[in-house]
């Protein structure tokens, strides 16, 4: 049971990684002059949209948390709306935090906001898919011994890796190498993306390695 689930997790995560790689490669066939660095904002949009679509589809197909009771259509709609609001709020929150960390306040607002959207896609959207608009569940998952399934462990790892990646992405900005990817927010968004991809790959492996120690509390 567990092995099979880990395999499913691995497949889903690899699919995500593959999608991100595709978003960097495929658009250049349709659009002349598209490069990740050159037309970075476009790539940010494409990447966010693709990753979120894929995540939602995966969530609908795999249903990692089957425990939900049947609910009415209205309930589902309100849930969906709530999710949207949460996502938007998290974008704003990320934007604020990024600005507080030293990003320019007035110039390049679009870049900063799209970066915030990308970060939200990598973190908040996953949480919304997995846990729903339920802050208390989020709080539970992001604490020690809080994860209750391998999906939640994977969520922990990918979220932390994305944020760490974005954090490390800020490091090369002051260097005087004059590379195109040192421009704000390219290095950070690339860092976040690489962190996310690394998290996606690490998560199944780590869970596989530690499967003996990992005992999830039953609900």
């Amino acid at each position, binding site marked *: 049971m567990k092995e099979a689930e880990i395999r499913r997790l691995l497949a889903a995560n690899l699919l995500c990684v593959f999608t991100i790689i595709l978003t960097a490669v495929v658009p250049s066939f349709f659009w002349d002059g598209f490069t990740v660095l050159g037309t970075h904002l476009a790539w940010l949009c494409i990447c966010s949209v693709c990753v979120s679509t894929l995540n939602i589809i995966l969530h609908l197909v795999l249903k990692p948390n089957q425990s939900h009771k049947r609910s009415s259509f209205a309930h589902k709609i309100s849930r969906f709306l709530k999710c949207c609001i949460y996502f938007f709020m998290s974008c704003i929150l990320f934007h604020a*935090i990024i*600005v*507080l*960390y*030293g990003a320019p306040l007035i110039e390049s607002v679009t870049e900063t906001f799209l970066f915030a959207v990308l970060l939200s896609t990598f973190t908040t959207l996953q949480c919304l898919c997995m846990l729903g608009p339920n802050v*208390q*569940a989020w*709080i*539970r998952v*992001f*604490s*020690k011994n809080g994860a*209750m399934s391998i999906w939640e462990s994977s969520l922990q790892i990918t979220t932390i890796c994305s944020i760490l990646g974005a*954090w490390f992405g*800020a490091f090369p900005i*002051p*260097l*005087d190498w*004059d590379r195109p990817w040192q421009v704000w927010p390219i290095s950070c968004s690339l860092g976040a993306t690489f962190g996310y991809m690394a998290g996606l790959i690490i998560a199944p492996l780590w869970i596989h390695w530690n499967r003996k120690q990992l005992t999830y*509390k039953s*609900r």
Partner: protein
Amino acid sequence: MQRWPVLLFLAWVCFLFFAGIGLFMSGFLLTRIELASSSSCADPLLPPPWERQGLPPGSCWAPQRFSKAVLVIIDALHFEFARFNPAKTSPLPYENKLSFLHHLATSQPRHARLYRFRADPPTATMQRIKGLTTGSLPTFIDVGSNFATYAIQEDNLLAQLVQNGRRVVFMGDDTWEGLFPKKFFRSYFFPSFNVKDLHTVDDGILQHLYPTVDSGEWDVLIAHFLGVDHCGHKHGPDHPEMAKKLTQMNEMLRSLVDHLGNDTLLLVAGDHGMTETGDHGGDSEKEVNAALFVYSKTPLFVTVPPEEPEAIPQVNLVPTVALLLGVPIPYSNIGEVMAELFSGDGDAVSAALQQLSVYHINAKQVDRFLHSYSLVAQDLPAEQLQHLQQLFSSAVEEHTQLLAQVQGATLVPPELESRLGSLISRFQLYLREARALCTQSWARFHLLRMVGGCTLIATSCLLCYMASELSASSDSFYRSCLLYPLLWGLMVALLLGLAHAFTQEGLDLLLVSSWAAAASQLGFFWHWWGRHPKQAPWLGLAFPMGILLFRCGAMFSDSFVVAEARVAPFLLASLVMLLVGKLHWDGRLTVPEGPKQQFLGFSSYRREIWYLLCLVAMLLICVRLSGFFHQCREEIPQCRPSLFLSPLASLRNTRAKNLFYLLCVVLLAGLVYAVRSWLRHYGNLNSSDPLVLFVRWGFPLVVLCIACYWAVASSADDSLGKLQELVQVAVVAFPWAVYGLASMGLLLLLCNPMTVFAKDTRESPGSIVTPYLGVPTSEVDFLHVIPQIYKRMQESQKSRLERGSCRATVAAYGLGSVYSAALVIALTLLGFLLMLLHSERLSLAFLLLFLEAFVLLHIHSRARGLAGDPFSVPWYAVISWLLAASQFFYSTGHQPIFPAIHWNAAFVGFHLDHSTNLLPAVLVGANTFASHILFAVGCPLLLLWPFVCEMPSSQKKKPKKEPREELQEVEEHMMEMRLRESPEKFSTALLQLGLKYLFVLGTQLLACVCAAMILRRHLMVWKVFAPKFLFESLGFVVSSICLLLGISLVMRVDCAVSTWFNQLQLR
């Protein structure tokens, strides 16, 4: 409470660091004193009279041989670049490219010659330009120069040329603009900063070079090409680009020679070489090996060139060019003339005589310089100077004799020639030895000292860490870890002193103290070995130490040092966010799960979380806002310095000026109000002690004075008309009033730091040892203040049991925050002083500083309330405190470079004169290290604040309770008296806090020191790393002294509290 051992321990650790810093500095910072004198035509060191008669007009000291000169400096022209070896079949990209030089040298051997040009370290362009024009060995700090500008103050070739009416035209590297402001007849400067740009400077010069040469409106033309150097930095020497660049230079020289007239001397020189990677700055063979090429259309040399080009030191160019052009040699020159250029066309004897005369002038000038230098500085060893003096005087004597004999014609040529030859070699010997002596003391890194200093600092850091992890409470700790090491150190110092006394050598205090420091460290580790430190939780340490590691790592990259103003806030924000994240991860923010919640799988937050999150948000906002007060460095050309740095007087718009002024004053008043209400809240404002009175009335007065000073200083000069004289007085009087009031406040604080109001309600004053158990007698007291009641610890268990019936009480208002109150008052006073030294609008930055420190303290005490032992300050708190300190160093408008120092601070309260150097140094130092001072003095608050904040809100909420219950509660709220209750733990906690603070400071310093040592060959070492090291070490000294002061203030309060209790007991 052990007061002296703690202070002594910290002072000893500081001394260890200071010894390390001193040792490193003496090896790294080459210092020299600049002399202000300059040579002139009329100087009495002229050649003997019979020669002087032949001196043509327009010449000084020696006959002018060329009326014009072109100096082409090709930056980083390594000797191998200029050399041409026809035998080589497959030359490297940089070889055999300057074929024109070879062509000239072979086709006209009497007109042209190539030399090895030995540059002196440091081989950075600016230092080399200084060397090439002053003839001296510039060091990193040329004491006596004005730090505010880079302009050369010493006598130099350009100054001499201008003084003697020559027109100097310059084109190329704009470094010269800063070094020689307004010296050039005409100049074409091009930006040198962008190392990646190979062509701007060179193409700009080429555009102007030939027209200028043809126009003839010049006497000396200097062209400084940068392309080769930039190509080296960008691609390295072994690259096709270098070949292109050198070919371009070759073509340039070819056409330049075509444009030159017969009376022109052409010099092509490299200012330094480069390593295989294209870098320079250090003293390796490749870096110092540059090329010099001399050419003229009239014959220069008598002899044929030697097979292997001669190596001459770079400083030799200065006297040679000066005398060839007929101007005096610059005063501080220590170079030796290149005699073969002075031989003329006569026979061997007259050539030798001419050479002899220039040697004589040169030697006299060097002797004069050495003499005046030894009068102002002691860094040249006396006995060697004496030896040189003997050499000089004997040579001069011989010279006069010989000249007399030549005039009398008593000597026949063969003998004459040999005597002339020997005399020339004696002058040469003198000049070379003099130069060697100067080189030895000015231009060499002492690697051994550097490594020694680095090691001392590193071991001191280790010592701090070890000692802070030890459980230091017993006497034996102080004996074995303080007394014995101190004795070891003293013994070594004594032994060295005795040894010196026996050998009669000069005592080098620095070396002695370093040896003593090393010995005492050895002693510490020897005695420490047997002790078992507490097991440190390595994983828990990883997160704050990781941030510290990043911070230290950032010191090793010039880009990060340049961007440190953004690095420190970034790391601070990350540290605090990580702290909150970690608390959450550990589940300390959530309410322990009940069975029901566990079933649901949810957890809910405590109430504090919102408070904590608000604090973090506030901190982040403070951090972000403080970024608006930045100063710029020239390394970031697009940066604009913050508007807030300029004084209000410079604002044109009166409305904006008034608004800003009002804002500053209102916020200043707000600070006073905040401090007073904080003190009132904790009941420290009740007594009628002088100190409290000062806080009540003196603080507003200080603010008033500052506001008046700002008003006077920022008003436009002409607006006041007749009141001008009054304004002159007021500009001085108001700062002095602030100085006076602040120092009075500090004195009062030292004399009686108690801000406690005791209300004695004991029925019989002389009753037996009374348990001062707090029972607030009236409810009215609760309305204004919260009385803090101290229960005596010696109280017996019996009286504890009896307390219900006890009636005798003393209510002491403000006792629970007595330590913090003293520190807060001291910090506010210091803040006033430091604000006065900054420009008006920077007071906003200071308010942010206080706010941020307050928020940090609250976050820290919240976090510690949730987890941890109250008596030990965790690492993250210390590190965040220090990060905030360095953040506000930048946010008060400073940068670790000399031109960014606020020199105006020296004249706050003084008209433009100072009798000593000490006072302005103190004022400027206080201005520069303002945040270091405030944060270091406030450091003990990290320990005290959680105790102050432990007061829960429950007391306020339920003021009306049964007395019984209140008793229970009151017993819990002892606040800082908990510290007094266990004096051993208190002193240990203070010691550990100080050691941790010193450890973190020391680690940052160590990173700077290592960066300066390892990267001493780096391109940016003199622009970035060395100033950074200097500022960091000065900051360390200031911080550690202020830390000691802060801790001793706490000790002073503790003393006062003890006496207060004794008096209470006696009553």
